[in-house]
């Protein structure tokens, strides 16, 4: 027994626990790929020399990014605020609807068809309507971001609350625990990995929602800038806006991964990737 336990300890310790050096080493391949793509782009522009309004090189985009300077903050802030508000409302409503639905079969039957219908309707199509209903400001943007981000939070949270080994619930029953206890000690922690999976998807969708809303009607924000740059054939500014949107989206995604690690130290971290078989 002792020898066996010792062998298992050794095996457990042999599991890869990346040190700081290894972590940096892991960043090298993706960075190289990124740099290679940028270099290829610059080289193509240098050789083919397309007009800058058609395809500017990364250098030109970077120059425009710097040049635009002090005008960025209010646009970035407008998009970021709309995204974050929409995302936050989606999380509150997603969880707020998931919990009662999971506990009430009647409510589940009554509400789910409507929710699925709303999900199937292309929500982007609501953007012009929201403009009419809520005006040109922040509210319509938040509404679109909320609407596209809501469903993944709802579905994932609901699944996480329900996907529990039946034997585990039997165990809880044999211990004569209350429904509140089962929620607190079993359902809630069980739902966390699903919930965070939903957050990841919702965060990227919320960014898209905010940008689309800005396309449709807005006078500030990165989405608005893209439309304006397009109209003025200022392609470098358009691409610079896209770069900032991506950077913001990545930052948000990273923040969720960080939160995920803090909330679930027991969970096998997947590095935020798409998973794989090897």
């Amino acid at each position, binding site marked *: 027994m002792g020898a*066996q336990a010792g062998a298992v300890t050794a095996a457990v310790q042999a599991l890869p626990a990346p040190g700081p050096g290894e972590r940096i080493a892991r960043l090298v391949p993706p960075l190289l790929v990124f740099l290679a793509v940028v270099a290829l782009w610059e080289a193509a522009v240098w050789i083919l020399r397309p007009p800058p309004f058609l395809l500017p090189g990364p250098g030109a985009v970077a120059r425009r990014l710097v040049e635009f300077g002090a005008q960025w903050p209010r646009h970035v802030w407008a998009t970021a605020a709309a995204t974050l508000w929409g995302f936050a409302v989606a999380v509150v409503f997603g969880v707020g609807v998931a919990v009662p639905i999971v506990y009430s079969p009647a409510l589940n039957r009554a509400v789910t068809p409507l929710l699925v219908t709303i999900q199937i309707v292309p929500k982007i199509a609501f953007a012009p309507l929201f403009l009419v209903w809520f005006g040109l400001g922040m509210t319509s943007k938040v509404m679109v971001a909320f609407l596209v981000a809501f469903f993944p939070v709802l579905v994932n949270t609901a699944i996480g609350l329900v996907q529990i080994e039946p*034997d585990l619930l039997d165990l809880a029953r*044999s211990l*004569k625990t209350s429904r509140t206890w089962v929620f607190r000690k079993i359902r809630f922690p069980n739902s966390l990995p699903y919930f965070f999976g939903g957050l990841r998807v919702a965060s990227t969708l919320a960014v898209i929602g905010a940008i689309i809303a800005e396309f449709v009607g807005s006078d500030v924000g990165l989405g608005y800038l893209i439309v304006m740059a397009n109209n003025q054939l200022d392609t470098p500014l358009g691409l610079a806006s896209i770069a900032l949107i991506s950077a913001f989206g990545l930052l948000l995604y990273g923040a969720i991964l960080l939160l995920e690690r803090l909330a679930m130290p027991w969970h096998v971290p997947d590095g935020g990737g798409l998973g794989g078989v090897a």
Partner: protein
Amino acid sequence: MTAIGPFIDVDGVHKTYATRGATLVALEDIRFGVDEGEFVSIVGPSGCGKSTLLKIIAGLLPLSRGAVRVDGRAVDGPPDGIGIVFQSPTLLRWRTVLDNVMLPGEARGLPRESTRRAAVELLKLVGLEGFEDRYPRELSGGMQQRVALSRALLLDPRMLLMDEPFGALDAMTREEMNLELLRIWEERRKTALFITHSIAEAVFLADRVVVMTARPGRMRGIVPIALPRPRTIAVRDSPQFTDYVRRIREEIFTSTRAEV
């Protein structure tokens, strides 16, 4: 209160399910007793309703006819003083090994410090000293079942109900766990009911083996196992052991053939 009759009294239990007009008989007239401190195995092919029977005894499933009494009291909900081990370890993956074992104490609102001491001691008993702060995913299947066994023992139950707890383990780990279980049972002397589809496992562990057949789940008989205790791995090679296994296998198979 002293009960008349056995500690666990399964008295003519029937279980039927209504399915679209037809009635499906899962269990038919099951009757046997388990004395205090006795180890009884229930063996039978899959579909004989042995897991259903265990759930009924644990008060997790209502019966259709008959009665189950534990210590003289009819079971109509989970009785006090049972520990259950399921086929899968059913550990909470977000809790460390120690916190998993402490779960029943928390559920009952027992003082944390004494619960903790009991859990640490039980982990020592099952040979998992030093693994208290690990997460379940870091342990092998056999070790996870040891954790589940510790958890079942935490509230010092009077009886231990086990539903094919080693069914998912490889043959070698399984034999090792059989020995471990006997060692722990001899130390703690809980009334034990053990469900398995392995005849050898049933014989090796038990004082008596309840033999069941499938569709509908019926009792074929009860075989007392007169192998001396404490039992070692060598028992499995003795002629008596082989004899018991053969006898039980014949009982199960002749009945199956008769139906076909």
